[in-house]
């Protein structure tokens, strides 16, 4: 049986029909072709599927699509507005905080969620926020630096 759900996806209002057993990750990737969020494990262990639901980072592989009803969803594809990179995306490039790039969308969304919630986190808080996002390439250092740079910029702009 299919369920009708309404949600906001990257600033767009959506009405969509989904089967009850499908994950949100599956639906955004397959039905909307938003393939920035990746499936690295399908079990909530790697963070590659991280997206924001009502501004909170979640593992989309663990959330059923029907649960998205009435929610606001932001994926990596919705982060840059009018083709302009979000600060955190630019910081990832500037700091070489990505290598193969497979963890990158999830990593950026986790970083973004932290900064939305806490614009001036400590380095420890940054590490904590991304500790559920596995990266096999970078050694994390440049990722932490990239997120900290955005935080510092925000702080000094105040």
């Amino acid at each position: 049986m299919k369920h009708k759900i309404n949600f906001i996806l990257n600033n767009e209002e959506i009405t969509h029909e989904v089967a009850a057993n499908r994950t949100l990750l599956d639906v955004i990737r397959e039905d909307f072709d938003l393939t920035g969020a990746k499936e690295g494990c399908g079990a909530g262990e790697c963070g590659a599927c991280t997206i924001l639901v009502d501004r909170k980072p979640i593992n989309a592989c663990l959330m059923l699509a029907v649960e998205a009803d009435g929610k606001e969803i932001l994926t990596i594809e919705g982060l840059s507005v009018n083709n302009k990179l979000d600060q955190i995306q630019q910081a990832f490039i500037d700091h070489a905080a990505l290598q193969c790039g497979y963890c990158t969308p999830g990593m950026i969304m986790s970083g973004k969620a932290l900064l939305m919630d806490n614009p001036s986190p400590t380095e420890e808080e940054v590490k904590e926020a991304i500790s559920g996002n596995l990266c096999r390439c970078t050694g994390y250092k440049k990722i932490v630096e990239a997120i900290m740079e955005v935080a510092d910029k925000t702080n000094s702009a105040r």
Partner: protein
Amino acid sequence: MKFVGESVNRVDGIKKVTGSLKYVDDLKMSRMLYAAVKRSEYPHAKLLKVDITKAEKLPGVKAVITGKDVPNRVGLYLEDKTFLANDKVRYRGEAIAAVAAETHEIAQEAIKLIEVEYEELPAVTNALEGIKSDAPLVHPDLGDYKWGPIFFPEPGTNISNLYKIRKGDIDKGFAEAEHVVENQFFVPHIQHSPIENHSVIAQMDPEEALTIWSSCQSPFAVQKALSVAFGLPQNKIRVISPAVGGGFGGKAGTTLEGIVIPLAMRVKGRPVKLTYGREDEFINSFVRQGMHATIKTGINSDGKIVAVKNTFVWDGGAYTEYGVNIVRAGGYSSTGPYDIPNVWTDSVCVYTNHPVGGPYRGFGMSEIHFAIEQNMDILAEMLGITPIEVRRINGLRPGGSNATGQIVEVCGLQDCLEDVVDKLGWEREEKKPSSKPNIYIGRGISCGFKAPSMPNNVASSAIIRINEDGTCQLLVSAQDIGQGSDTTLTQIASEVLTIPPDKITIKTGDTDYTPYEWQTVASRITYCAGNAVVKACQDAKDQLFELAQIKLGVPKEKLILADEYIVAKGNENKKVPIKELALGLSMEDGSGIHGPIIGRGSFIPPDVKNTDKTTGQGEKPTAFWTYGCQGAEIEVDIETGKIKVKKVASSFDVGKIINPKLIEGQVEGGILQGLGSAILEELILENGIVKNPNFVDYKIPTADDMPEMIISFVENPEETGPFGARGVAEPCMVPTAPAIANALYDALGIRVNSLPITAEKVLKAIKEKQ
């Protein structure tokens, strides 16, 4: 230099931070079918029956295949595998049959309907047991297989390669040594754990041309293997590697492509996709081989090592088509970066009924250095000298000789050692004890080296095309698997042509359009593909100069490139922009000559030769060696046994840094991967069954595990390298684990001889010491 040596931003940055880069699993095609694989339930068993009739009848199933459909044996160095099992299975998880169906769910359902009858056979689950003469044989037909001339299988046993080093006179060496000690070490299997699982799509069109989209490191190696396996000409096989979400060796060679293609051949016109789940990734893609090391060393009281006898027994798993070469590399590198006159090594690849061992970042070096570098510390302590001193005494220097008897000309090992010692200040400052009574502090050092472990004559090529507006297309088949080759190869092209990186677009990984590259492995791309790019750009430059000398009336030898212009040396007013000649030279009378500038470059590492079959001795067995050193500072909690790595300093001699920001990141990643192997990672195997195929039970490092990292480099140029560069991708993880192990000894006086150094092992060792 203007572009080489600069921290240019990654050329693939924007598509990666926006999530717009399409990896294979992100590709969707119309009328695509989904594959699923029936896998063995036993580590070793005869296949009595594989019945697919029920699966074939399930609505939505479009094709079912078994081993009978892919009988040809393939393999990179030793042709010992078929893509699906025939007659018997050799590890738990081996593919037996595969299905293509309209949906993923139907494919899964169909797999359950395939009936398999097995007759279980006794399994080899330990390499040391496997080499015994009464061990069950994993490959009774080994003698019928084909292999390359530099490998030495022993048919009638489980030994698929026995690589020997016989240097000097080992008996005399031990007889004359003042002290002789023997130590043993064990390194377990681990998994590459790229965040992207393997994925492939294959489609065969009606004229029997095959297209494969694969997350693979080596499109041309895949093309060749598939051509052998399926009897298709290479011009009918197009392999595209659109993006790779981490490789580390696990996506080298050929993996799941061979399962999907026979399905695609049965459903012509329809693409068939197979993406591994994480459990598959853990079990059914390459793993790093396990290794048992025994090192007997003869050393004199002055600290000079005079003899070493190594036995490395590798747990190669069910198929060692690739593993035999890791074992060879372990053999010819078996002294580590030390100058030892008398060496005896047997490096033995053993078939077991374990998952398939294959290339893993380091290619045997991490494994042997875990043993060699702890052994060095044991020797130092025995003689009452410091770990640093024993390395100063024995570490290779220019003019020294390595295990193969090669006299090394360029060698920055000692520079790296001093660099790390200096950065950590260990000889200036005594270690301060922790303020907490349960925390002990340790310092450990380790050297390391690695050569690209590849056949001597492997080839690379590059093409550069210049457009009318002075921009360029650079074509190579070196794959950017995260290491940043798209960026560094672009920088190299920029440097030769004086055209900035943002005007050069690099395209990779499409065997129909991009030129040949052997494989993206072995830390060889900067060096090999880099050289091909230099040559391609020089070729283009040469063509430009041919035309410019007519245009400017200045002989070729007097021309240089500067800021996108061809300029007469000494007369800067005489110049012509590169773009003006991109499509050839227009003459005054309106005619034209030459046509478009297309530079082409081909490269094979010069003068690399086979070593002697019985002694392993040779003049130049590898293209180059990369040397380095790392030091680690750790805290150990004696109550919990937990190790926290606080600081790692690293120094490698990379010849020439192409991109400081990228190389730094690469080394940081290597350190974390080394740290994972040191204290966290082990593929737990019980009776041939992988017990922890997920990230909950197999932990890889997270941001919490990150130590402070001090990264530096030494630049002794590689004479044959592009701008003097050599590779560092793998070497940078090699010393990390032994440095941590040595730091543990420094902290508590306990030595854990097997990886990973878990809290449990530490607690046990503390108890035993008391």
